[in-house]
């Protein structure tokens, strides 16, 4: 094997770092967008056709660009934000552009599952739109939201592996440079195994948390 333990640990750390950081930023963007997508639609709390249509289209545009292309396409923007277009920190920018709209859609989906009657009851008891969102919609959807976000994290782990293409580091980078380009099958298998364990772990924790928050 052409890599040692410290290289693998470093790559693992980079993957966790990229996934974690981009998840947090994506959530910041995706959560409000997801909420807006729900409440501005026709017949909902804050119906607003213009806002809904713009969001809907913009999110679709981002969602339709493959991550590998998105990464390259927004290099100028990445340079402005991070100061460089290479490295782990630089990889976070395209990851956020990738996962933010994705999370918005996932959150939209979860929130739409909430029974319309619950919202009606909330309105009838004199709740403000903010109260309806934070005291009714989100708590009722929480279990489903947790599962949706688990999907997002798993997606981010996968996408972060591609960030190796712009020198982002991480397990994907390791697998490509050593496993693929230098024919080190062992490294390849090892990184894949680590990714499998990682995804299994994230999914299990997500399932557990989703059950926990079903009743709060």
């Amino acid at each position, binding site marked *: 094997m052409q890599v040692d333990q410290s290289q693998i640990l470093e790559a693992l750390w980079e993957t966790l770092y990229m996934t974690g950081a981009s998840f947090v930023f994506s959530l910041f963007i995706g959560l409000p967008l997801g909420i807006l997508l729900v409440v501005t639609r026709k017949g909902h709390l804050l119906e607003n056709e213009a806002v809904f249509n713009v969001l809907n289209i913009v999110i679709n545009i981002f969602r339709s660009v493959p991550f590998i292309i998105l990464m390259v396409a927004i290099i100028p923007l990445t340079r402005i934000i991070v100061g460089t277009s290479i490295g782990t920190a630089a990889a976070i920018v395209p990851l956020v552009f990738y996962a933010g709209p994705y999370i918005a859609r996932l959150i939209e989906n979860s929130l739409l599952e909430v029974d319309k009657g*619950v919202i009606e*009851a909330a*309105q*009838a*008891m004199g*709740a403000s739109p903010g109260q309806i969102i934070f*005291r009714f919609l989100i*708590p009722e959807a929480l279990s489903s939201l947790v599962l949706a976000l688990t999907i997002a994290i798993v997606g981010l782990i996968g996408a972060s592996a591609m960030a190796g293409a712009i020198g982002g580091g991480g397990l994907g980078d390791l697998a490509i440079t050593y496993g693929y380009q230098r024919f080190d099958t062992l490294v390849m298998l090892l990184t894949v195994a680590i990714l499998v364990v990682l995804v299994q772990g994230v999914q299990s924790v997500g399932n557990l948390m989703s059950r926990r928050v079903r009743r*709060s």
Partner: protein
Amino acid sequence: MIQFEAVKKTYVSGKQQVHALNGIDLTVETGEIYGVIGFSGAGKSSLIRTVNLLERPSTGRVLIHGEDISTLSARKIRDTRKDIGMIFQHFNLLNSKTVHHNIAMPLLLAKTPKAEIDRKVSELLEFVGLADQAKKYPDQLSGGQKQRIGIARALATNPSILLCDEATSALDPQTTQSILDLLRRINKEYNITILLITHEMGVIREICDKVAVLEEGRVIEQGSVFEVFTNPQHATTKRFVRSVMNDELPDSLLEQIRQNDGTRPIYRVQFTGDSVGQPFMSRVSREFQLDLNVLFGNITELQGIPYGNLIVEFDGAHSEIDLALASIRKDNIQIEEVQQYAG
């Protein structure tokens, strides 16, 4: 008090316009239980939602205690809604929250202090008979229990009006009865005005003081429950009344009436209240030398007033029968020949 003044509601979907409400005029007095009945699609659901502005009337006004709340700011509308409780066919409870939390919700929204909330919630749980269920979740409760929680939640802010949107339609007859008893208690003990919509005439008969019959967005008949049940005018109203009054004539009797050659005329006699106690049959039988044969009948109670309905065959001299009829009518008993009624 709730007043509907020429309320219309029109939904536009594409090029089609749907007139859910076609000019409703109704007044619900303070302290009343007012029932609105209609088949599905009659506009009941839109009507009840105009009261707390879940639906805005397209034209016309709805006055709550004399005030048209549609002219108020969003904040003021929310304040008014706290004075109007609402319960729903499918309860609409938060499944992620305990019974206690569900009932506390309106108080939490109003930022009531915790001690006060706990006190109020215990009191309400006691009132609806679920004091031991506070820590349960809605999906651990039966339909009737869920509706009781819905009622407790609706009462948390001490409203002056309670709206019931098909509140018993998802419940079995026995549970329906217990929920109706609870609603009656709320009306009596807290003097809360209740406006309910239903498609079940039994609900109207059981607890309402007044009733309006809705069809195609119009009120086709309204009045006290007693009036409407004993003397329905419109065909739809008659159908609703028959669904609970069981005064439809059996087929065999209809056949008998159809073959009646007029020598022994058949009459429908309706008597109410005071007239129920009168032994009118034996009296006219004696006075006018008639044989009276009761073919069918029932006596029931409406709004605490006895109400009877008999089909009687008169046998005797026709001149005597005419005199007997006049005498019966003098006693405030309605009587009419059945041929015209049976159809």
